[in-house]
């Protein structure tokens, strides 16, 4: 990737996750949660399960954070995990519903085929990554740089200050402004705290 472009598979970011940095985990969660819920809704027959499935995805990541070092593509990892848990859910439902609900059968048959359709999977996975990158890229230049340094690269405010050659106070102000901005620009970020 070109320098300056947002890269969600940034090694630093992955290592922060591995170390169990809450801040990095929260960033990951806020970037991905609602989007994965929408994907899960697309895969399930009973959409109300979507949120609990995606919560399980993040729970698993948090519990197995030590193994995140082996992950090279976090977008693919999150997407595949969501898909697999949805498939488990479909199988589970199938056993439960087999003999009772006729209209369920056709629906679940279609959903099974959909979850296994490679073209659709590829499109969804790529769209997901594109949207995540775009949502960061859409921030104004200053906010974006500070956000990336502070959230994706895990730099301290003082480190950002010396790197950018500005005072500590200015960094604080920029971050406050960036967060205020993001609160609205990316509703997912609503309660990122400093």
């Amino acid at each position, binding site marked *: 990737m070109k320098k300056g472009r947002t890269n969600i598979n940034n090694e630093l970011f992955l290592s922060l996750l591995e170390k169990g940095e809450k801040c990095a985990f929260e960033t990951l969660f806020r970037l991905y949660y609602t989007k994965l819920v929408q994907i899960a809704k*697309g895969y399930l027959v009973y959409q109300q399960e979507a949120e609990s499935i995606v919560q399980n995805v993040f729970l698993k990541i948090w519990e197995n954070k030590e193994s995140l070092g082996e992950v090279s593509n976090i977008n693919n990892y999150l997407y595949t995990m969501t898909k697999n848990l949805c498939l488990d859910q479909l199988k589970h439902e199938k056993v439960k519903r087999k003999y009772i609900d006729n*209209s369920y059968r056709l629906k679940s048959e279609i959903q099974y085929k959909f979850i296994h359709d490679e073209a659709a999977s590829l499109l969804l996975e790529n769209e997901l990554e594109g949207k995540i990158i775009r949502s960061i890229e859409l921030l104004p230049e200053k906010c974006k740089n500070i956000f990336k340094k502070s959230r994706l690269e895990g730099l301290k405010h003082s480190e950002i200050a010396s790197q950018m050659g500005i005072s500590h106070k200015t960094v604080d102000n920029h971050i406050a402004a960036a967060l205020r901005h993001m609160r*609205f620009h990316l509703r997912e970020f609503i309660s990122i705290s400093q």
Partner: protein
Amino acid sequence: MLDQKVYKYLRGTATSKEEKEVQDWIVSSDQNSKRFFEIKAEYVAATMDDTHVDIDPSYHGIVNDNNSTSRNSRRIPITILKSAAILAILVGLGFIFRDTILDSHTVPIIPGDAIILQLENGNIEVISEGGAAKVLDSEGNVLGAQQGSQLVYKNNGTSKEELIYNTLTVPYGKRFDLLLSDGTQVTLNSGTSLKYPVQFLKRKNRQVFLDGEAFFSVAKDSVNPFIVNTNQLNVRVLGTKFNLSSYPEDQVVNTTLLEGSVSIYNEQDTYDSSNASLLEPGFKAEWNKYNRQILVEEADIAMHTDWLNGKIILRHVPFKNIVKKLERHYNVKIVNNNPKLDEELFTASFDIETIDQVFKTFNHTYEMDYIINDRKIIIN
């Protein structure tokens, strides 16, 4: 026609009969399944930006944040809001109905927020939502009929020599569907009017005139091109899906293509592949009315078509351009006395929010001094 049912199926608004129909279609062949999966994947991709989910409680549930205060979700189920909206519309219609009855001895007054159909002879009819209006020609033959929120024109195969036009006008705060006699599906956005022939002529271009914004799903006909004429610009297609936004108050005319291909050329020119810009799916053409230049670039499809689902999506849009969108969507008047605010960029998406909630959200980012007084909002 089926496409529309598929979207209803995906949105979960299909009746059980339609649902069965779509499902049977999907499983009837591999080709159909493939097609459906493609549409579905695109649909899911487009919904990824929806942020209905309240994520804070879920997040704190996972990491057990001790310092997080448990907050009660104030989210109101969408269905309740929808019912409330329907009720509000019904109550509103009730008043209009009562007023019309009471005033029936006087000249009928057309309410400013009515959907209006103007016939060839200049007569005006009010289309009430959920009504069953019929469109007749001068001899009393039925040309079209209203089916719910859609006006459907029949192709009765007459060999008329002359084009007869109707004009449908949708006011601020409303949207309406139209099915033209050739099978072309048009959805009109708020504050839009479309002039179209009640019957297209054989061996003649299919031409309509747009003022505002509409989504076209044009019936395929490789012999007779479909041309939308708008604001110095012609958009020519054979059979495709695209969104065309051309409000007189906007500086640019945007054509966003979803499927097929379209050509865009100056209204004064006759079509020729050398003087037209050809657009590929996923791209948009932005025609600047002032410098008369066309800019073709990759488009964010959701941003240009989400109005079809009653949403407003803003990505890096200056406030001055948002004002008009909000006015149209919510049928309000906004007066901005703060010129600095005009150039501020905002990114947001709204759907079920009321105009009060929208302004509260704006206020979070950019403190503005505003007063909402019924349908008028003043920013100082």
